[in-house]
Each structure stands twice: as structure tokens, then as C-alpha cells.
């Protein structure tokens, strides 16, 4: 099959690296979660592009709906973790979580 990579893949790459940059540089755990959400969205768009390229949007759509559900659960439980961490440590700075060392 001849695949010409459409413009989507550039957007996907840009979104992915935006999210990855956000996850690398920020120290605030909420910002890390936002970065994670951005890279998840780039994966969603990759799936849409795959469905469009193979003319199989039905499969791609059903996959994406399940993916969005999974992401919502992951982010919700991640936020619960942040709240629990804030109550115990009084801070949401990821650099202060350095108690476990070898």
C-alpha cells in the first residue's frame, strides 16, 4: 500500500513534543498532568489519521471513544493522587518528592 504521510503527522509530532517538553521542564505536578494529556491527544489524532488512511473510520472511532474513557479515568485518578500528596506534603512540587533513594 502506498502511504503518503499527510500533514496530520506534522501536527501530531508538534503536539507530542509540546507535551513532552511540558512534562520535562515543569515542576508542578498539575502541569505535568496537562503535558501528559497533550501527548495523549496527539495519540488520539494519530488514531484518527490511521482510520482515515485505511478508510475504516468506524473502527477508529470506536477505538478513540474507548481511549478517551481510559484517559479520563487515568487523569482523574492521577489528580486524586496529587490531592493526597498535597495533603501529606503540603506541596505539589515534583522535585520535593525525593525521599526514596538507593
Amino acid at each position: 500500500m502506498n502511504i503518503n504521510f499527510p500533514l496530520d503527522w506534522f501536527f501530531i509530532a508538534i503536539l507530542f513534543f509540546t507535551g513532552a517538553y511540558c512534562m520535562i521542564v515543569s515542576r508542578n505536578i498539575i502541569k505535568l498532568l496537562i503535558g501528559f494529556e497533550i501527548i495523549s491527544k496527539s495519540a488520539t489524532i494519530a488514531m484518527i489519521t490511521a482510520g482515515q488512511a485505511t478508510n475504516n473510520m468506524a473502527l477508529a472511532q470506536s477505538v478513540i471513544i474507548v481511549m478517551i474513557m481510559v484517559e479520563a479515568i487515568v487523569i482523574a485518578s492521577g489528580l486524586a493522587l496529587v490531592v493526597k500528596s498535597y495533603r501529606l506534603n503540603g506541596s505539589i512540587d515534583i522535585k520535593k518528592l525525593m525521599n526514596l533513594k538507593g
Partner: protein
Amino acid sequence: MAIDLISYSLVPLFAALIIPFIPRKHRRITEIIANITLLSGIINLGYVIIYYLVLNDYTSYTSDAFTTLMLFTIYLVGMAITFFSTYYEVEKDTNFSSYYSLILVSVSAMCSLVMSRDFFTLYIFMEALSVCSFALITSDSKTFSIEAAIKYFFLTFPASVLIIFGISLLMINYGTFDFDTIKFTSMNFLTFVSLSFIILGFLIKAGIVPFHFWTPDVYEGSYSPVSAYMAGIVTKVGGIYAIIKIVMLLSSYGFGSNLSKLLLFTGFLSVFVGAIAATVQKNMKRMLAYSSISQMGYIILAAATFSPIGIIAAVFHLINHATFKTVLFLNSACVEKSTGTTNMDELKGLEHRMPWTSWTSIIALFSTAGLPPLSGFWSKLLIILALWQSGHIFYAVAALIASVFTLAYFTIMQKKVFFGKLPEKFNDIKEAKYQLLIPVVVISLIIIFTGVFFNRVFPYFERILS
């Protein structure tokens, strides 16, 4: 999904749904429901497996035999952990009803994962398993466990994005992601990239060496029975199982020479970095975590040969690892409960006070290091044979040398914790309750019997993985 086995996944799920509705004061009922659910499953699966092992007759066996074996391992470790936590002192803050319900949901997710027949189902249940496990890590609500859970979250969830990228590239190439309908007719660039993305994601989930930074922290920081659960089965099924599945899929089409080099190198790195780092650790749980990394490297090395004997060795070592690592982590939990610490410099001479714990940990560590009558010896022998036969002589020798390191760090652990003269402050400690020893002793017996009756076990493995 394998429809005829689906009840093994649905029954724990229903039990997990019932548990939150039980009033908090009836704690016993919660524990009984959780234990009975897993015990019934393990009796059922154990009957199926022992029936074929004893009779040695495989005429009526279906192709789902591998799935059945994985289900048995999951139920075995799940049962051991549930029974252990029932008698392990639960801290006051621990929400035990959510604890048992999460264990049952994660058992259900793992069973669905090994039953899945396409990449997307694999992804969904892997995510369900991860969410359950980081909720389980925080079950004692201490600073360490919260930190471990946050590290686990941020260092492994980006892997799922990589898996989705891989799946979408696979879909562009083949139009589907079903294991049965994908035909790997040619190993073109796009297939290589997509499979690399998927394997990379699962390697991060499994904690193989370039991505191992979360593993020691999580195993050290989490609630003690949970760290046995994580090391024993969760990371194996959530990460390594998928890699073995991909290897089985590719080797049936005769591809994988490029992926083989990649996997061999990560496996080699993992074996050595894990073994060397384990020798210098001071905390017992942290040392066991590095040992776990090293043993997972062996599984990857075996799978990376893409040969039938390599796959048998990988699956056999995965199951052996589930048994002996569960024993070692549960023993470390017993030691922590009796003495209040897992720091190996403070512990000494516990052999005189905790003989059962000491002897079961000797059995498990000899099995890990590969001493002859025990099950770990056979799986390591198969791994080295597979590597040698497929021409990777350097990696075979490296695996042999690293197993000497394994014996070295375990002997150091045993000497520091159990041997020597008992210090004054440990004079009044006692052996753990006999209920806590039951799962450990049963799994130790499984290790011994699997090793002694290897002439029966090997044809079984050969049969189910052909």
C-alpha cells in the same frame, strides 16, 4: 477474547463490585468473599492443569492451554497476596474494602489481558491494571507510598501513548490489529517502527533497564504485600507477557531478526545492571527490586531468540519468577512486620527466631540463582541453551556469568539478614503468624515440585507453546 474462559475474569469483577456494599464493621465478610473468589478459581484451574500434567495425555487439549497456564499463575499469586494481607497487620488508615476490591479488579484485568486476542484489548486492560496498581500502591497512605505512586504514574503512563502510536501505525499498514487476522507477510519499515513503538511501551511498563528508574522506588515504597503483588505478577503480565506474545506472533511468520538485536541488547543490559546494582543495596526490598529487573532481563533474552525453545524458556522463567519473587517479597514483609525495618545493616541472625522464613527464602534464592533440583535451574538452563543454539554465544556466556552475580547478591542478603549472631534488641521477636507462612510454604513447595518433576513439566510446556 477467549470466550470459554471469560468467567475467570468476570467472577472476580462481580466480587469486587459486591465488596464496597458490605458495611465496614463486617470486615471478616469482605475478607472471606475475596479469599473464596480467588480460591475457587485456583482450585478450578489447578484441577485442569494437574489433570493434564499427571495423565500426560493432551488429545483433548485446546489451543487456549497457554492462557490457562497464565490464568493459573495470576490466581496463584493473587490468592497468596490476598490470604497474606488478611492476616498481615492492616494499618488503621488502610481502607481494606477498597484494597480487596482493587486486588480483585486487577486480577480480573490481568485475566482479561492474557485472554485478549488483539492489540487494542491488550492496551485497555493494561491501562486498567496500571490504574488499579497505583491505587493499590497508596493503600497504606504514607508519604513513601504516595511518592512511589506518583513516580509510577509519571514514568509509566507515557508508555501507553507510545503503544497507541504503534497500534495506529499497525492499523495503517494492515487495517486491523487482531492477532489472528494480521498477516506479517513482509517486514517493511512501517511494521518495524510500529512494533518497535509497541515493544518500547511494554518495556517501559515492565521496567527493563533503560527505563527502570521507577521500579526500585515503587517496590520499596509501596505497602509490603502490594510490592510482592507488583513484583510477582503485575509488571510481568502488564509488560513482559505482551512482548512474549508479539515474539510468538512474529516467530510463527519467521520474522524478527531486527527486533531480535534490539531485545537482546536491552535484555543483556537489564541482566547486568540489575545484578550489579543489587549487590550494593542496603534495603532488602530495594535489593529484591533490582534482582527482579535482572530476572526480567533473562526473560527478554530468552524471548529475543525468536526460537521455540526460547519462547518455552521465557514463559517458564516468567512463571518461576512469579513464584520465587512472591516468596522473597512476602518474606521481606514478614521480616518488616517482626522487626520494623528492612535495612539489611540493622538486621542480623534472624534464622534462630524465624526459621520458616529463613528456609523458604533459601529455597527461593537458590531457585533464582539456578541451583539444580529447583525450578529456576531448569528455566536458566533452557535460556542459556536457547541463546547458544540460536548462535548468540556472547549473550549465553553473559547470562551464565550474571547468574553467578545472582547467587552472590542473594548470599549477601541471606548472610546479612538471617545468618550470624542474634543482636540483643531482637531477642524477643517471634516467627510470623502461621497464617502468614501458609502462602509462602505452599509456593515454596510448588518451586520444589516443579523442579523435581521437570520431566513431566517440560512436555507440558512444549505442548502448550507449539
